């Protein structure tokens, strides 16, 4: 049972998904290669159309408007000359006859059939209809055959006066894309052999091969000539497969324990929808940004060259980025300050005071208020002349502060606002931690004569440590991504004093259109936050004795 279950799991979770992860991108890459071949044919058709138009204009000695013709041709050098001649003759006749485009649009256009009469008839109506509504090249599929349709425009490039249908009946052997599907099949077979070997022998090398072979196959597919964006999709498919394969390997390893296996399988079945959501909306975009960071990509330019690590190299010497990094690090320092304030608030509202629930809600309100609204209100409060804060200070005889107008005070002002904004959230977490501390510990300490400070120092603080670690780690991660307040309140000023990393990324991506470089910054930010989080866990995560 266990071997069969294990093998079934590997097949269901590893091999079937791998087949899909390999075959679908391979098929798309093959189609993409064929599409690029079609594009080449289309360019040839447009060139032919241009020749035809010139011939028409020369033959008629006037504007070609009024002549509509549809021509079928093959990309076959032997017939192309006859095709041009016949098309030109016919169109000239149509034009001389004073063909009216409006009238012709409603009736089947004349067709010169050089290749396939049945195909011509089938294409006739639909091509005409589509050309009337759209004025650009289109591709028509009839059965298994694809026809690229190139519109022929008049001298002013305005009205469509005809069209060339280019039916690809025989592709150039030199341009036939190689076989991505064959590569996919080979990869799958090798990987399947390795995976099945692992289920029988449990050898680590077999498992490693089962992972490495698809990785190698996917890499070859992704770098396939003319793979285009389908190469990227093959990477995504591989990532999806890797997730499933990991689950499958985990399940297979417990296949000898049927109860645990069934429970794990059921758990993964329940997790599947949210996992799919994660893969599509989180992991996919994350991988896409990784891909972007190795490219020069500016949204509009068609060329998106691979630049390797250039973006990361440039980052290392980018003073503006390093300044933004420093500003962000300083900004994050408000977290420990905010934690102290939040702990104080939590201790305050942890008492059975009248109206304490209302007080808790008031403290928590800023966190659930729109950050944009908060930023706008605080921007007004920070105004040097008419702002609330300076007016309050003036009542106590304290001189007006520049707040957001000075490089020295702008970032601390934002930190001050952040303490106010997040203290309530941190307070709620600390409150939950405080209420988890057994009352008996405090009571026995009190009986032993411990003072309030000693109880706080020796009981409350150590037992709050897990809560504090959670607050610290999550808030640091969150605050490294500060954006809204900066965007609304300071726009990075004055003199870049509040230019934080995410705002810097935003400017590079959307103002300077440097998406690749901005993605590299995003990954650098990820690495920094990751390391800081590891350090926090290592230094602060030890359990209290």
């Amino acid at each position, binding site marked *: 049972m266990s071997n069969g279950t294990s093998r079934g799991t590997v097949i269901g979770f590893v091999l079937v998904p791998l087949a899909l992860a390999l075959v679908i991108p391979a098929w798309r890459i093959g189609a993409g290669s064929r599409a690029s071949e079609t594009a080449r044919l289309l360019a040839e058709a447009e060139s032919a159309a241009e020749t035809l138009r010139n011939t028409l204009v020369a033959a008629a000695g006037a504007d070609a408007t009024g002549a509509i013709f549809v021509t079928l041709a093959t990309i076959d050098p032997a017939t192309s000359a006859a095709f041009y001649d016949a098309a030109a003759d016919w169109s000239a006749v149509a034009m001389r006859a004073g063909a009216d485009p409006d009238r012709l649009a409603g009736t089947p256009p004349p067709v010169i059939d050089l290749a396939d009469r049945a195909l011509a008839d089938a294409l006739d109506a639909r091509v005409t209809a589509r050309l009337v509504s*759209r*004025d*650009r090249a289109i591709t028509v599929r009839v059965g298994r055959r694809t026809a690229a349709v190139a519109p022929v425009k008049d001298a*002013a*490039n*305005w*009205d469509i006066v005809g069209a060339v249908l280019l039916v690809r009946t025989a592709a150039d052997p030199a341009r036939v894309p190689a076989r991505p599907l064959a590569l996919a099949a080979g990869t799958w077979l090798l990987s399947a052999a390795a995976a099945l070997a692992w289920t029988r022998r449990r050898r680590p090398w077999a498992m490693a091969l089962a992972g490495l072979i698809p990785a190698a196959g996917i890499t070859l597919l992704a770098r396939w000539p003319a793979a285009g964006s389908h190469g990227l999709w093959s990477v995504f498919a591989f990532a999806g497969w890797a997730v499933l394969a990991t689950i499958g390997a985990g399940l297979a390893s417990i296949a000898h324990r049927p109860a645990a296996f069934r429970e794990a399988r059921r758990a993964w079945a329940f997790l599947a929808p949210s996992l799919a959501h994660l893969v599509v909306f989180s992991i996919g975009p994350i991988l896409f940004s990784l891909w972007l960071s190795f490219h*020069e990509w*500016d*949204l*509009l*330019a*068609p060329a998106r060259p691979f630049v390797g690590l250039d973006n990361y190299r*440039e980052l290392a010497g980018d003073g503006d980025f390093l300044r933004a990094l420093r500003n962000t690090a300083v900004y994050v320092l408000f977290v420990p300050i905010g934690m102290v304030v939040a702990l104080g608030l939590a201790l305050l509202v942890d008492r059975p005071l009248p109206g304490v629930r209302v007080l808790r809600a008031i403290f928590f309100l800023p966190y659930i208020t729109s950050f944009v609204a908060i930023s706008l209100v605080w*921007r007004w409060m920070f*105004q*040097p*002349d008419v702002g609330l804060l300076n007016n309050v200070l003036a009542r106590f005889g304290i001189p007006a502060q520049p707040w*957001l*107008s*000075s*490089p020295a005070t*702008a970032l601390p002002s934002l930190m001050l606002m952040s303490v106010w904004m997040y203290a309530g959230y941190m307070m709620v977490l600390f409150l939950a931690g405080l209420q988890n501390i057994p009352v008996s510990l405090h009571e026995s300490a009190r009986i032993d004569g411990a003072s309030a400070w000693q109880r706080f120092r020796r009981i409350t603080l150590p037992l709050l440590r897990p809560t504090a670690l959670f607050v610290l780690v999550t808030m640091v991660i969150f605050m490294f991504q500060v954006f809204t307040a900066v965007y609304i*309140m*300071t*726009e*990075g*000023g*004055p*003199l870049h004093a509040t230019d934080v990393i995410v705002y810097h990324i935003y*400017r590079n991506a*959307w*103002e*300077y*259109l*440097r998406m690749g*470089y901005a993605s590299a910054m995003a990954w650098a930010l990820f690495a920094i936050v990751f390391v800081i989080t590891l350090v926090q866990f290592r230094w602060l995560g030890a359990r209290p004795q």
Partner: protein
Amino acid sequence: MSPAGRRPVLLAAVLAVSGCAMASPDDCVQVVSWADYREIALEEEVADSFAVRFPGIPVCFESLSGAGIYREKVLTSIAAGTPPGVFLLDGIDIPAFANRGVLLDLAPLAERAGVDTAAFHPRLRELFRRDGQWIAFPKGFTPMVLYYNRNVFDRAAEPYPREGWTWAEFVDTARRLTSDTDGDGVEDRWGFGWAREFFYVQSWLWAGGGDLLTADGTRATGALDAAETLDAIAFYLDLATREKVVPRIEMFRRESSVPILRLFSSNRLGMFVSGHWVVPQLDAHEAAGRIRYGVASLPTRDGAPATPVLYSSGWAVPRNAPHRKWAVQVAAFLSGETAQRIRARAGLEIAGLPSVAQAIAAGDTTGRAAVFLANAARGRQTWGARVEKWREVEDLLLDLLDRPLVRGEPVSAVARDLATRIDQLLGASR
């Protein structure tokens, strides 16, 4: 029917209703712009006129106000292959869009669409015609001019600004306008509304004989650090630091947040520099009897006629737009006489067709329209219309005034440093 049985029916009904509510982008030629609430009403009127003229071409207008959001949305839609049929192209985005080949060349289509390109203002023809291609049909433009508050000038018994004003006269006037009117020891009326953004500063450099870049637009060294430019920057800074004829800068965002219009409309500011787009607000204040205002050319160092910077926009068609022929027809109509006449009523800009602009000027009894037209004729397009990395350059240029103002750094050192950085930026491959 049981509740469970009703669920699929309800679901189907909801889906059907949602499906009905969703309009297909292929249904109409989508026109997007950054029109504000005043312009939207006029654009709807333009759309009605278009529907009468071209009943077979459905058009839907969409306003994405907020410059940053607007640009992001247009860029994303073009990149995603679902571009609008027509969009309003800001002058400073011309190089970024045109150099990437995402705009349809309208030159061969103009005549068919009924556009007489020769009829547009020469400054706009220079801007939108690049290498023989028309990258957009002009909408309108504005020069930066000097607005002055007649009430403030009259109360201070100062003569109004005149053509041929020199900087020395301007400073003297600003000094005399600046005062503590309520005697509390704090100035509450200022001569000039000072702005930090290079957007406003560019004209002052030209008025002093300086410039930001060399004539070919490739280098800042030799221009930004030239003596005339440094003098012009120093003159402009002195207004805030030495002469103190300007309100305090309250914020150092990319936009200053100095409440210039608020101060001007409450008769606490004598002069400020801006484009035509503030006219509707000022007219409303004037109609309400709060202010009386006039418009003049910028003063120059020696009193020579000023060359103000021009800001323009036009209707562009993405190369991958759906219904391209229709879209070109719509763009042509939007820049045509009917649309420009309707839009001119908002007073946000000078019409791109001189015939329309002159007709409006002929009916203007305040003399302001004539000043705008004279300045438009002398004006120069912003460097942003030529430099692809203009947004990065403009970001750097915030430091041009901020570093001397905030840190007290010498203007010459800042200008030299920025010139070097701009050179690197313009010369960089990426």
